[in-house]
């Protein structure tokens, strides 16, 4: 089915939430040339897996509901991995 505009918007918001969360707390590099990324490697999914493992979630590498729920919780600004 074509994705309804509001769903597309939600998806965009969620992706933005995931990226900034992983940049803030899991040392995801701010890489602005997504399209130049070499094939096969997906640092975002790898970092997402790190976050899911830390919080004892199912390690899928995908921003599922439980993962997004935790990312929306108020928290300490110190990274979870490394300083």
């Amino acid at each position, binding site marked *: 089915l074509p994705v309804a505009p509001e769903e597309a918007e939600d998806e965009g918001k969620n992706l933005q939430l995931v990226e900034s969360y992983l940049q*803030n*707390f899991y040392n995801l590099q701010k890489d602005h040339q997504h399209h130049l990324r070499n094939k096969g490697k997906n640092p975002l999914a790898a970092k997402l897996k790190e976050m899911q493992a*830390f*919080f*004892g979630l199912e390690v899928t590498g995908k921003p599922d509901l439980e993962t997004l729920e*935790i990312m929306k*919780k*108020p*928290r*300490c*600004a*110190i990274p*979870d991995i*490394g*300083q």
Partner: protein
Amino acid sequence: YVFTPGNPKWKRNNLTYRILNYTPKMRQADVDEAIRKALSVWSNVTPLTFRKVEDKEADIMISFAYRDHQDNSPFDGPNGQLAHAFQPGEGIGGDVHLDEEETWTKDGRGYNLFIVIAHELGHSLGLSHSNDPGALMYPTYSYTDPNEFLLPQDDIDGIQAIYGQSNAAVQPTGPVTPQACDPNLTFDAITTLRGEKIFFKGRYMLRKHPARTEAELNFISLLWPKLPSGIQAAYENVERDEVLLFKEDKYWVLRGYDIAPGYPKPIYHLGFPKTVKRVNAAYSDETTGKTYFFIADRYWRYDENKKSMDHGYPKKIVSKFGKTGRVDAAFQKDGYVYFFRGTTQFQFDPRTKRIVRKMKSISWFNC
């Protein structure tokens, strides 16, 4: 628990702290008290001491800051990131910065300043984030009544691994986060709630939803900030869509998922004599409208329709329920009553008045 990479620590135990500014959202005396109490959380379990200084550089400088405050880690406005702190070291090392745009309080509203500062001081002393959901050093915020706060064992282990034990004759210990499949797990109270089962343990509850294999561990305060930890008995009145929760000589009522106003009330309103000081366990039989309260080796029976205790009680538990004896927790499901005593669970059939099965207390968690 996790040490900060590089294992930074203070080279001496007698540290100084200074409060650089105050938030207008709290009385200054309350901020001072929250910080003093947060420091004592760590000094109580280590040889560390903290002395307040007013007008010179201190090891730990505590301040409220707004957005970009020149430390390369700008805050993000209300909610989200609440505060940060720097690992032990000179200059900015050890300092704590709190996001001025948060709603800082001394209670359960907004963000409790004591809880957040106690967490940040863990970083100031060399700890990183723990992935124990019950630890103070867990990254996400969760409220605990400061008067009930006990530093969890995970955090005690972490900070003592850096600075050693306290000088106290008896080493303080802290609450351990329950693991659903720990065979030694026991429960304070258990109730059904709209088809779910809620297992109470200390300040935690394990929620078991019939459609989910895993039990979900939460702080009681996550759903009910006004409920104390250490709930001792609980039961659901399905017909009225209510759950009654007991601790010492008081009880609360949940209507649906919300604490009903006007509670807690004394348990004596239900008809208990003043000699009863607490309830060990309770369950309500939906078919008869009778609720059973277990206290030591006796039980009372309460009529939910008449809203009064039946006459001729208390009676000995063994007289009706066989050798279950003392009961920690109980609930009814599909006509059977499940009694919990320590790590053992008894399935009781009220029709035949017999225990039909004996299981481990954690049998509901698909371990």
